[in-house]
């Protein structure tokens, strides 16, 4: 049975993980996402579905636990916040290199360094430009509501297993901490070990049986030609993601003369700014990338023919704006507006920025 509840974003994500039939969660406490592991520990998912939950000794250990369970074909996830994700990046690079399906959640706070525990979107570069070492990308989903915190867990695992690749849910302290109503899907049955072997036994390390060669999980190829082939294989996956699984949402763009581009919590604020602008007679619209990689480049390129200016609205000092500029190829002026340090811009501030940069 599906169920309507009032929940925090972090809790909705945790509950959705249990209901999606996730096999294991490994985490380490950090504000503002500790509710994820607290909720899981309180709910005893071991008894509900057999899901394993373990508090690791560090973010580094947690991501390597994800690597271990993922290498055996299990559905496994972790969550953290910015400084913790920095620690996980080594493991994330290994997950990408070894082609392991897995889900990582970043409930972003302000940085750099220990920064602040308040919401931020300053991990955009880290999320979409690699972050860890080597040639790889993450499929990045950016929820902008508590409902999407729940829904994206299943979506993320679908993509992770479709491509055998790590997927990042890039949330922030605002979406993680705020309460909204959320429609929770009904409980899915967790796969049995036999089903995991049947589905993933051609690559996962589930124990070598006589009817197959041994399975090896590694990101190492000491021969350059083999390593280059591996990198090319990864790039092919990313191309396929761009063709088949790019997601975005448009709001009042049909007749828009000015365009906001914003994701996650900023998209919620920008949506209100569109309404305020329209009330003043300014024809504004919003493009909200739902996946930050793959990025809606073509959509932006086409919208650039129609609008007079684009404002990239982000809770950071200007990161996604670079991708907006790359997408529109100088067809139209592109500016950035955003607060940092954990300050959340108001819709009025966003509208004022649009007016100042393009209209006045």
């Amino acid at each position, binding site marked *: 049975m599906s169920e309507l509840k009032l929940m925090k974003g972090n809790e909705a994500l945790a509950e959705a993980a249990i209901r999606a039939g996730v096999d294991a969660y490994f985490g380490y406490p950090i504000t503002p996402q500790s509710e994820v592991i607290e909720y899981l520990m309180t709910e005893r998912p071991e008894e509900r579905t057999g899901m*394993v939950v373990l508090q690791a000794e560090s973010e580094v250990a947690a991501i*390597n636990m994800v690597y271990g369970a993922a290498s055996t074909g299990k559905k496994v996830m972790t969550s953290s916040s910015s400084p913790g994700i920095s620690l996980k990046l080594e493991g994330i690079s290994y997950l990408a290199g070894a082609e392991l399906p897995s889900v990582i959640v970043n409930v972003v706070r302000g940085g750099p360094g220990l920064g602040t525990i308040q919401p931020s979107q300053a991990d955009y570069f880290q999320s979409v430009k690699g972050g860890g070492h080597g040639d790889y990308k993450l499929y990045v989903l950016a929820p902008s509501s508590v409902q999407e915190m729940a829904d994206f867990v299943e979506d993320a695992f679908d993509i992770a297993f479709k491509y055998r690749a790590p997927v990042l849910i890039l949330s922030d302290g605002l979406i993680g901490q705020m309460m909204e109503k959320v429609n929770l899907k009904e409980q899915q049955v967790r796969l049995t070990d036999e089903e995991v072997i049947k589905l993933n036994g051609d690559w996962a390390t589930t124990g070598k*049986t006589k009817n197959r060669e041994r399975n*090896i999980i590694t990101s190492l190829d000491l021969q350059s030609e083999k390593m280059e082939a591996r990198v090319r294989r990864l790039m092919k996956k990313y191309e396929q993601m761009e063709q088949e699984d790019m997601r975005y949402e448009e709001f009042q763009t049909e007749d828009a003369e000015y365009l906001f581009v914003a994701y996650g919590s900023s998209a919620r604020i920008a949506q209100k700014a569109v309404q305020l602008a329209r009330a003043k007679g300014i024809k504004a619209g919003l493009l909200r990338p739902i996946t930050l990689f793959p990025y809606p480049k073509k959509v932006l390129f086409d919208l650039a023919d129609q609008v007079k200016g684009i404002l990239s609205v982000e809770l950071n000092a200007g990161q996604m704006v670079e991708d907006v500029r790359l997408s529109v190829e100088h067809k139209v002026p592109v500016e950035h507006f955003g607060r940092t340090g954990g300050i959340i811009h108001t819709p009025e501030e966003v509208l004022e920025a649009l007016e100042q940069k393009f209209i006045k």
Partner: protein
Amino acid sequence: MNVLDIIKPENQVFCKSKLMTDTTLSYCPGCGHGTAHNLAMEVIDEMGISEDTIGVAPVGCSVLAYDFMNIDITQAAHGRAPAVATAIARTWPEKYVFTYQGDGDLAAIGTAETIHACNRGENIVIIFVNNGIYGMTGGQMAPTTLEGMRSSTSPYGREIESMGSPLKMTELVANLPGVHYVTRQAVHTHKHARKAKKAIKKAFENTRLKKGLSFVEIVSNCNSGWKMTPLESNIWMEENMFPYFPLGDIKVNGILK
């Protein structure tokens, strides 16, 4: 006895385990890794558990263990094998999970993962090959490098004052309640190899009985890193490594010796 008699199965004393592949070992001639690999594979074969065994390879000389062991293996990031093994054992509680790690991997960069996997009493086997040096990267100082021992990063010998004392990880983890079995072995002679095999077998038996963590240290040589002939390195090991890292059981059935 002629050659034909010698190669008869009933006269065979030692042979390559069926679970070792035919891939040429990447280890230097004289190195103990090959023997340690073979012993682990013999135990897994004799126990009939190869279909239910998942190995975790480290970073270091034995990073390519998966080329030589004909079982499913996941290769972990440097030092993280105990965390990787933890997750495999937790999500597949009926499997036999072991890590195979060197001293740089286990006792330096992976210290936290080692101690916490041990402290949680994960139902896994850790095989820890200690040769007192970083072999793969070319003979740098390890946490287990002996006092006065020369390496490329302690070219005048390890100085305790500035570089600390050689770390006895095995004694350290033996004190943790989650650890069921701790032993220190060697593989440079037939006698030692037979003992080491018994120890590895006991460790995997503990997994079968769900006794928690078993920790088998193998003090080994690194003739290349130590810049000695294989024979010299084994003699040096007996004279210098064994006094500091004495062989024998340290904890059996959860009780310190």
